[in-house]
């Protein structure tokens, strides 16, 4: 046999093995892509599966009598009376009337535990809004306690979780259900209230407002500074060591762990400049420094994509360099810069770690109205709720995550849309 045929046989023998390894390699690739996609799907299914229930809350229908003697008030405009009024008695009496046979202290307590501990104050708010109700009776849906809520939802789903309820409470709920006096309604509280220790009364309004205030400040500071820095580096900076140093700095800052920015905020802004803790100002400052590199890098890319012919034309017509940049390059690069800003803001919206350092992790019930009110932000609220032991908070946390992800998806898709819409090909 000649050497050639020998080689040919060798190759033919090895060919099968090589083709097999080729096929295997392809399958590894498919597997890897599948794992990644499966992770995305699992994450979303898990969160939505856990959180969709929180958009509904359990309400119980009761006949409430706004009895002046019971509450011990006669004038709805007298603040002192309103504060001292025995509001909690309203739902208690209504429950007692609904279940007249209940006796004994512990049973009465269990009965009262059917309703949210804030039920009396909800009725107070209702009375203040509708003063003509004083002294009258009305049938009204009242928010149930979180344990009842958890039980009722799991019971409706066919897998009752009654660990925290007594058998009597379970009976009452079934009785109410037969009469159609207990049902799930849209959970408006989730969107209108601030944080609370009671899961059924807790809402994300405060956190959303905090996020909004913090982001507005971040955008107001980081966008102009970032764009100015990008313009300087692209258009004016001389090629020297100093410019290189700034560039290296920016690239490194983009990769510094976010928690380090929290340390910076704590040591510089809070300890040195005495900016108050927990307020959107300090959160906005820290997030500004954190998002600045992203905005500078994307803005530079946008400026780079403006063709040199535009610059040469402007200079040729006698424009100064500043005029060339401000009148021609900047407007053309703006869509790209905006895209970068939105991506930077999305990053800032999801950021948690640095804000923990600067005290935005406090328990805050009031809804912040200005940059100097103590506030928390949506991701930190998620962190706080995820840490809470009550089972009902798992549902709330997942719902808050769904809201956060919705915001992020909106921001990112609008960035993509903006880029597609306004992108110019030269």
């Amino acid at each position, binding site marked *: 046999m000649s050497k050639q045929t020998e080689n040919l046989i060798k190759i033919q023998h090895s060919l099968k093995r*090589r083709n097999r390894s*080729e096929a295997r*390699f*392809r399958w*590894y*690739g*498919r597997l*890897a*892509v599948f794992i*990644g*996609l499966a*992770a*995305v799907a699992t*994450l979303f299914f898990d*969160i939505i599966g*856990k959180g969709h229930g929180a958009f509904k809350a359990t309400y119980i229908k009761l006949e409430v009598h706004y009895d002046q003697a019971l509450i011990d008030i006669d004038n709805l405009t007298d603040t002192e009376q309103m504060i001292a009024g025995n509001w909690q008695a309203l739902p208690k009496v209504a429950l007692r009337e609904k279940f007249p046979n209940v006796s004994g202290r512990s049973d009465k307590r269990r009965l009262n535990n059917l309703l949210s501990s804030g039920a009396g104050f909800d009725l107070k708010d209702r009375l203040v809004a509708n003063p003509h109700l004083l002294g009258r009776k009305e049938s009204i849906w009242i928010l149930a306690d979180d344990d009842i809520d958890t039980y009722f939802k799991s019971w409706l789903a066919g897998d009752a979780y009654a660990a925290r309820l007594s058998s009597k409470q379970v009976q009452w709920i079934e009785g109410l259900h037969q009469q159609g006096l207990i049902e799930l309604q849209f959970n408006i509280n989730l969107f209108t209230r601030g944080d609370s220790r009671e899961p059924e009364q807790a809402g994300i309004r405060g956190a959303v407002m905090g996020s909004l205030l913090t982001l507005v400040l971040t955008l107001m500071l980081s966008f102009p500074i970032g764009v*100015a*820095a990008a313009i*300087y580096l692209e258009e*004016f900076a001389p090629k020297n060591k100093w410019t290189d140093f*700034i560039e*290296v*700095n*920016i690239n*490194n*800052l983009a*990769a*510094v*762990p*976010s*928690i*380090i*920015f*929290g*340390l*910076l905020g*704590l*040591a*510089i802004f809070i*300890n040195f400049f*005495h900016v108050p803790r927990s307020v959107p100002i300090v959160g906005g400052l820290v997030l500004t*420094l954190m998002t*600045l590199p992203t905005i*500078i890098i994307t803005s530079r890319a946008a400026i780079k994509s403006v063709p040199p012919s535009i610059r040469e034309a402007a200079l040729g017509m006698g424009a*100064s360099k500043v005029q060339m940049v401000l009148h021609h390059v900047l407007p053309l690069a703006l869509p790209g810069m905006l895209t970068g800003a939105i991506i930077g803001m999305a990053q800032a919206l*999801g950021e*948690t*770690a640095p804000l*923990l*350092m600067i005290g935005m*992790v406090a328990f805050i019930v009031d809804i912040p109205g200005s940059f100097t009110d103590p506030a928390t932000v949506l*991701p930190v609220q*998620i*962190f706080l709720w*995820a840490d809470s032991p009550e089972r009902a908070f*798992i549902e709330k*946390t*997942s719902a808050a995550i769904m809201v956060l*992800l919705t915001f*992020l998806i909106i921001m990112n898709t609008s960035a993509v849309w903006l880029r597609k819409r306004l992108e110019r090909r030269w």
Partner: protein
Amino acid sequence: MQATNILILLIGFGTVAFYLGRGRSLAIAGPLGGIRKLHSLPSYYGMHVALWCALPSVAILGLWMIFDDPIINSLVIGSVAADIIPIDTASYNLLLNKVSNLADGILPRTGLSDSLLDAADHMQSLQLISQWALTALSFVLSTMGLFWGWSKISAEFRARPVVERVIQNLLLASACVAIFTTLGIVLSVLFESIQFFRSVPIYDFVFGLDWSPQTAIREDQVGSSGSFGAVPLFVGTLLVSAVAMVIAVPVGLMSAIYLAEYASKNVRNFAKPALEVLAGIPTVVYGFFAALTVAPFLRDLGNSFGVSVSSESALAAGGVMGIMIIPFISSLADDVITAVPQSMRDGSLAMGATQSETIRRVVIPAALPGIVGGIMLAVSRAIGETMIVVMAAGMAANLTANPLDSVTTVTVQIVTLLTGDQEFDSPKTLAAFALGLMLFMVTLMLNIFALHIVKKYREQYE
């Protein structure tokens, strides 16, 4: 007047100054035969006056806001009556807080000593003086600036170069914010760390095997040794990062290869953005997923095989972190793989190699520096990642290499040491800054090295 109100007013002044300046330049130009006779466009004269009017006052305003509090505080504390003179820094801060709360009216004035009340009154009057002085100063400065700028306007005056130089300097200042940020980070962690290393020797910190940062308040307290040996934290961090890398590197790399070399256009267009979604999800969400879904799942799985898995295992935290890092590695790897010139692939295929042989023997070796750089950036991400480990990893500093055990990491300890109210000069809080310094140095070195490699690699094929 409040500083924000002054700022708004100054902006208003600036606008007025702009129109005044422009109007004057137009008035000068009129008799000369139009604005062609001016050196610059009228709006530049306006800008020039506006800048003179607003900039000095804004600068003074900024400086004032930084320095007025410390000056007032030291004046007040320096002049308090003898019976409440503070003896050490702790009582100094306490006194300062009390006095400023009194002055702001947060604390009721009843039942406090006269010397305290006097100090509060003193502070109040100083604050008032400071505010009025600031208001007056900024008004005088802006009026003077306005007149100065206004009086300089003439047909020969070169307003444009002046204005443009100011604009360029503002741009330069913006670019320098990045440097100041780095400087701020270095100074803040370094300064506090040096303070920390005064009470805890640096050798004990870097090589100590025992981490229990609870310092004893009383001498005889049990269980609060206050030892700051950071080795368990370093090991825990490395363990979690290693688990993350074991998941992220193969999956990220293989999916990048598949999507770049094999996948049809449709698959690529769908799978690539879908994987990128993972990069956009906030870390707190991953933390929740790790703590409430993955960790219990792994624990139950372990139990059913008779293996005891901690409910705060490094495996759960690291695994979820790995998922988070997949898109990071895959997009970086995708960049470098697509940058390998097609001619190299063609050459290999022409020699009879299969596609996978081409990828393994030609494409990957050619792209290796870039891939290594990307992996190093990913490692630096994993080390610095905070929320996943805070929520899913433990607090106890176990020195172990078993991923089924609970470990704690550097970032977890920084968060636990620094959240909530704390005293700033105890070794416990300062330890967080020392950990921050370590974290910053390690990630910085990784980043510089990785960015250098990636840049070098890019130049190779450009």
